[in-house]
């Protein structure tokens, strides 16, 4: 009987279906990268000063191009951070609704950032912004998790987590509103601009610091990614399979929180990316986190870059907040994809 099965497996191994689906996956990946490159190139051509490559000979032309490029970098960093953060939260909490916003992490980071913006000026503030945002985001996550685990042994339920996340998040935004309303005119201006969410380049120092933190966190998460696969079956099963399950969860949550804090301190409150991009990437490429983490980071980055290009071009010279575009333009597009491929994304 066993022999028969082995024979069957041999047939199965070079079954055309298997190879066919493998090569289909490769094609899909190739197509995806081509599209990313094309979109990035396209976004370099869009801007309030007109469509196309500006005149490189004139000083204003090269300034425009370098501005577009730095916004591209801002978009890549912010989008990658938000999207990868969403991937990790969704995997660790085994919850399709988990993302930095719903869990209150972005709200906490926002509160920390607001305090920093209102308190300080100059170089120090821009450096401390990501750090303070991260610390306040960690505290917020601990509060949310703590409230949600009250009365339950072990992991909190999906619903209590979302509920306490939403509550803590709205408390944070109320405090931000209070701080803004009592702030000086200049401080108010700074905070509101930042909160609306925009990819206006921040200082070079903050960009460098953010980039370093971002790469560190992404690399860390990628190292965790096979363990994220195992944790998708739950903490208990991961433990049985020989993981330090709790340690992996804590490290993963810290990295995801760091990513969210980086995004918030760079570009303010931009919603939607952390929730939807992971789902779409999972729908297209499957849930294997070894592939999903880098793909979602790339996809999230390019998505935000494109949205920003649209935001600054559509009603030029007026610039639409990029968060509006991510939701308005991205929403329907992603809904269509998800409707067709939800089965492969998440079965709740």
């Amino acid at each position: 009987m066993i022999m028969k099965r082995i024979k069957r497996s041999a047939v199965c191994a070079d079954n055309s279906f298997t190879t066919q689906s493998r090569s289909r996956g490769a094609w899909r990946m190739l197509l995806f990268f081509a599209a990313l490159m094309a979109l990035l190139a396209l976004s370099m051509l869009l801007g309030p000063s007109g469509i196309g490559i500006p005149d490189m000979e004139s000083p204003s032309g090269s300034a425009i191009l370098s501005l577009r490029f730095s916004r591209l970098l801002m978009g890549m960093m912010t989008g990658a951070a938000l999207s990868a953060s969403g991937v990790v939260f969704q995997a660790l909490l085994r919850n399709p609704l988990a993302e930095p916003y719903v869990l209150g992490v972005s709200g906490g980071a926002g509160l920390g950032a607001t305090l920093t913006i209102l308190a300080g000026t100059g170089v120090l503030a821009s450096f401390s912004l990501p750090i303070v945002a991260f610390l306040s985001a960690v505290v917020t996550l601990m509060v949310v998790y703590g409230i949600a685990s009250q009365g339950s042994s072990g992991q909190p339920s999906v619903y209590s987590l979302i509920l306490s996340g939403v509550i803590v998040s709205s408390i944070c935004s109320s405090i931000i509103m209070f701080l803004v309303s009592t702030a000086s005119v200049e401080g108010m201006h700074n905070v509101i601009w930042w909160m609306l969410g925009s990819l206006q380049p921040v200082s070079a120092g903050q960009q460098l610091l953010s980039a370093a933190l971002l790469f560190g966190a992404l690399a860390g998460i990628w190292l965790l990614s096979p363990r994220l696969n195992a944790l998708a079956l739950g903490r208990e099963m991961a433990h049985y399979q020989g993981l330090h399950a709790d340690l992996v969860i804590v490290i993963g949550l810290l990295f995801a929180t760091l990513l969210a804090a980086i995004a918030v301190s760079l570009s303010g409150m931009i919603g939607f990316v952390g929730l939807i991009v992971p789902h779409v990437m999972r729908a297209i490429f499957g849930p294997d986190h070894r592939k999903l983490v880098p793909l979602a980071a790339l996809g999230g980055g390019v998505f935000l870059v494109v949205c920003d290009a649209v935001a600054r071009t559509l009603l030029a010279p007026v610039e639409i907040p990029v968060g509006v575009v991510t939701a308005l333009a991205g929403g329907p597009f992603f809904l269509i994809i998800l409707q067709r491929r939800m089965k492969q994304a998440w079965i709740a």
Partner: protein
Amino acid sequence: MMQHYAMTFRNVSAGYKQRKVLDNVSFTVKEGEFVSLIGPNGCGKSTLLKTAAALLKPLSGKVELFGQDVQHIKPALRASLLGVVPQKIESPMAFTVDQIVMNGRISSMGRWGTPSSVDHDLVERSMIYTDVLDLRERFFTELSGGEQQRVALAMVLAQDPKIIMLDESISHLDINHRQEVLQILMNLNREKQMTILLVSHDLTLSAGISDRFLLMESGTLVKAGTPVEVLEPEVLSRVYNCDLHVQQDPYTGYLQVTGAIDSLRRRQKLNRSVHVIAGGGSGIELYRRLLIEGYEVTTGVLNRLDSDAEAARALNIPAVLEQPFSPVGSDTIAQALKMVGDSDIVILSQVPFGSGNLVNLTLAEAALNSVKPVFLADGIATRDYTEGKAALAFSTRLMQSGAKVWHSMSELMTHLQQQPDR
């Protein structure tokens, strides 16, 4: 080298925050043994497995795998010693069967999570063993419960562990695949000396394949031994709190555990009535069991609002009731005496006695006087709050006049069945 047991529990107590589930459990499992862990729902079988796999830290005592304290074994090494197939695994995301089974190799793969050829071979072999090769490209979430269970087993087999514990994992399977999975387990056990610990509710099935049984009851290990030693009808009936028979199949020699069907049938109508003296919630389980067994039940005297009075009303049991929080009066006792006169048997629950309800014992006395069997719950001394231990003295008198004492529900039910018909 000293021969180690595959698994050793040394005086292990374990549980959760406030609730101790395992109480001082000790046993050993030899390498290569096939052991079935049995016991009623909620007796601590799953907690035992979790403690064995170091998911729960014992409150006291020690669990050893091959002579090493399981709390101190590195997780990756532990996974190569011990695999656990849980009752059910849930994948929230759309992983394919391939990807799920590969999880079994997670702790032995390198840092980058790239499977080696050894990993691939083990995954392949596990999938062949469990007959899930055809499902490899399917989504795990789309499979039937039985198919998912076989994939889970394949995943655990891919760990290549020396011990496998299964937590009621095969109860979801249809008969065909249950036999097949058991066959796989038996082969692994026989050919690779894999040690198997199977939590099972199918006593007959387990009797056929196990070297040894561990019988648990409310957190303690009641009995450990060969199937013949453990599967004793008296012990099983007490632990499972129902009437069980054990027979040996004349052809195969296998033991068969069956519920007593004829007692089920008899339950429909017994035409015998039992009066229960209860109070304070001590009567509810008695009412329930007596009604299930088919007796006509009456009760009293109870105070209104007493939880037994509420239960009697809910179960349509005729009851004599006194005002709330008042001592039992002469009127109500007279009514109750009439009720006792109409009944065949009188049972005293584990009701606490005070000055207010002491008079209820005269009901038992009256029954004895008219030569009706009377059963008193044991341990009345601990529940006697009357002055001068009047209830204890009274009950001693009752016993001298022929009242019997009952200790457990199943014992009481056996006694009742032995009473001659009216």
